C-alpha cells in the first residue's frame, strides 16, 4: 500500500513515516501542500495522511483541489484542531476520516485499514481468496488455516493484488505501492517478489499480463 504523508513537522513526519514503514506501507513524505499537489497530479496513492497547517498550500485547500480534480484517494486528516466545526469543515472538504494529534500509531493503522477496506467494498476486515485468508491488521496470511510467513514487501504486494482482484495492476503501480521514491530498487525486484509469492502460495493465482503487469483473477 502506498501512503502519501503530508506533514510539515520534521519530528512528527519522521515518526509517522517510520511507523507506517514498520507495518509495511510504502511511504512518501512531503512537507508542504504544493509539493503534495504536484505529486498527486502525477502519481497514484492508496491513501493520503494529511496535516492541515501546511506551508505554501493549506491542507484543506489541497484537499478541495484534489477532490475537484476527481482524485478519490481516501484522505485521513491529521490535525491539532479538534473542534466539531473543524472536523465538519475537514470532512465536507472531502476528507474520509479525522484523527487528532497526539494520536496512537495503532489507531492510525486501524483507520487506514478501515478506509482501504471501505474502498475495496469489503465488509470483512480480512480478505479471503481461494484457500487464502489475509489479515491486514495483524499482517498475517493463512493458507488453509495455517500461517504462512511472508516478508513485509511480499505481504504488501499480495495485499495490493488481492485488494484489486480482476484488475490489471501495472508494474509502476505495484512498485510505487512497495517502495518510496527515495528507495533504490533493482529493475527485477518486482519479478523476484512475484516469484517468491508464487512459490510460497504453492499456486499460480498471480497472472502475468505481458508488457503490462500482473493481476489476480476474480473467483
Amino acid at each position, binding site marked *: 500500500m502506498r501512503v502519501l504523508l503530508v506533514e510539515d513537522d520534521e*519530528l512528527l513526519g519522521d*515518526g509517522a513515516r517510520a511507523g507506517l514503514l514498520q507495518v509495511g506501507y510504502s511511504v512518501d513524505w512531503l*512537507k508542504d501542500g504544493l509539493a503534495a499537489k504536484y505529486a498527486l497530479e502525477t502519481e497514484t496513492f492508496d491513501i493520503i495522511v494529511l496535516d492541515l497547517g501546511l506551508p505554501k498550500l493549506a491542507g484543506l485547500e489541497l484537499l478541495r483541489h484534489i477532490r475537484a480534480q476527481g482524485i478519490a484517494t481516501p484522505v485521513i486528516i491529521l490535525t*491539532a484542531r479538534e473542534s466539531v466545526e473543524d472536523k465538519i469543515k475537514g470532512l465536507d472538504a472531502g476528507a474520509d476520516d479525522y484523527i487528532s494529534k497526539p*494520536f496512537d500509531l495503532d489507531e492510525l493503522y486501524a483507520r487506514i485499514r478501515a478506509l482501504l477496506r471501505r474502498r475495496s467494498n469489503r465488509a470483512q476486515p480480512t480478505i479471503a481468496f481461494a484457500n487464502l485468508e489475509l489479515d491486514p491488521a495483524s499482517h498475517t496470511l493463512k493458507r488453509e488455516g495455517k500461517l504462512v510467513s511472508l516478508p513485509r514487501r511480499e505481504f504488501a504486494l499480495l495485499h495490493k493484488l488481492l485488494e484489486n482482484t480482476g484488475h490489471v495492476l501495472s508494474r509502476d503501480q505495484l512498485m510505487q505501492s512497495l517502495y518510496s521514491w527515495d528507495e533504490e530498487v533493482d529493475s527485477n525486484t518486482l519479478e523476484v517478489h512475484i516469484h517468491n509469492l508464487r512459490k510460497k502460495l504453492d499456486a499460480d493465482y498471480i497472472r502475468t499480463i505481458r508488457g503490462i503487469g500482473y493481476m489476480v483473477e476474480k473467483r
Partner: protein
Amino acid sequence: MLLSIRKFLLINLFMAVIIISSLTIIGSYYLAHKDIRRYMDSLLVQATLICQGLINKDISEDHLGEIQQQLDAIPAQISHFTNNMVRNPLKSHYTNRFQFQVWDTNGKVLLHSANAPKNKLYSPQDGFSNRFIDNEKWRVFTIHDNQLGIVIVAAEPFVIRDELGNRIARDDLYIMLLTYPISGVLIWFIIGLGLKSIRRVADEIAHRESNYLEPVDLQSVPVEIKPLVNELNKLFYRLHQALEREKRFAADAAHELKTPLAALRTQTQVALRTTNEQERNTALQHLITGVDRCTHVVQQLLTLSRLLPEENMLEDIKKVNLPALAAEIIAQLVPAALEKNIEVALINRKPIVIIEGNAIALGILIRNLVDNAIRYTPNNGKVKIYITTTSNHVNLRVTDNGPGIPPELRGRVFERFYRVLGNQSTGSGLGMAIVQQIALLHKAKVKLATPKNGKGLEVKVMFPNYLSSK
C-alpha cells in the same frame, strides 16, 4: 468618610426636619403672640364702644344701677353656662379676667364689671396703654367721653395673652413631636426606595457568574450612579478583552503543543516497535529532540505570559549598557552556533551605549533575535549583531545569511505561533512575538529587512530611550 448613604441621609434629613420644625415653632410662637395681641386689642376697643353704647347717654343712677345689677350677675351666669350647658367648659381663668370700668369726672365709679379692680384702670389719654395696677400688668383702652363727662375703660391682664400664646406654641410642639416618628419612618422608607435601584444594580453585579462580563444595561440605572456603572462597564469590557486574549492564548498554546506531543508519541511508538537497533536509536534521538522542543515552547510561552500584563507596564527600569548585555547573552548562544559552524560576531564602535530599560527583558529580546538567526541560518552561515547610535536612537541589528523572509510574510512573523516555512521544527513560533512585546514595552520599533548584501534577514530594533554613549 461617608460609609453609608442610607445612614447619612437618615441622620441629616432627620436633623433638617428637627431644625426646620423648631424654627417653625419659634416663628409661630412670636407670630401667634402678635396676632393674639392684635385680636385682643380689637376686643378691648369693641368692649369699650359697646359699653359706651349701652350707657346710651343716660347716666342717671336708676339706669346705671340697673345695668350694674346685671353686670354683677354675669359671673354666676357664666359659671351656670360653663357647668351645665357647654360641652367644653370655658376656663373661668380666662372669662373672669376681662374687665371694664366707667368713671365720672369726679372720680366716682359709675359702672364696672363684676370682678373689676377697685383702683382706676384708665389712663389720662385716650387709646391703648399698659398699666401696673395691684402689682399686675394690664392692657388698657380708654375713652374720655367729654359730652357726658365720663371715662370708659376696658382692661385685661397681660398674663392671659402670654398664656394663650404659650398654649398655642405648646400645642404646636406636641403636634411636631407627634410627627417626628412619622417623618422618621417616611424618610427611612423613601431613602429605602431611592436606594433600591442602587441595590438592584449591586445585586445584578453580585449575582453574576464570574465569567459573565457583559455590560450592565444603562437604561435601568439611575442617573446618579450612571457614571459609576459606566466605569464598571468599561472595566468589564477590558476584563472581557483580557480574558478572551488569555483564553485564545491558552488555546493557541495547547494547540501548538499538540504537534510536538504527537511527534513524541509517534517516535516513542516507533522505538518500541522496531527490532532494528539503529532505527530505535534514531527514534530515541528524535525523542530527545522532541522533548527539547517542547521545553523550548513551554519556556517561550512562560516568557511571553510574563511579558503580557495588560497595563503594559515595565517594572525595574534601569540604565542598561546594551553592548555589555548583548555580549553576555551572545556568549551563551555561541555553543549552539558553533555546532552548526556558524560565525557569530558582535560589532559595536562604542563600548558603552546606555539605554533605559529592563535588563532582563532586553536580554530576552537579544537572545530571541540571535537564537532565531542561528536556528534559521544553515550550517557555515554568518550571524552578526550590530549596535549603532544615531542622534536620538540606539539601533540593534541582527543579520544572518539564511533564507530570509519574503517581504509579504514579514508582518506575520510577529503573530504568535507563526512559523515561516513550517518545516523548521525547533522553533516555537513565539520568538518574534516576544521580541515585539518587549520592544513595545520599551517603545522601540522592530523592522525586518533584507541585509545590504541581498541575502538573509536583518532584524532592526530602534530604541528611543537613548541616554549616553562613549
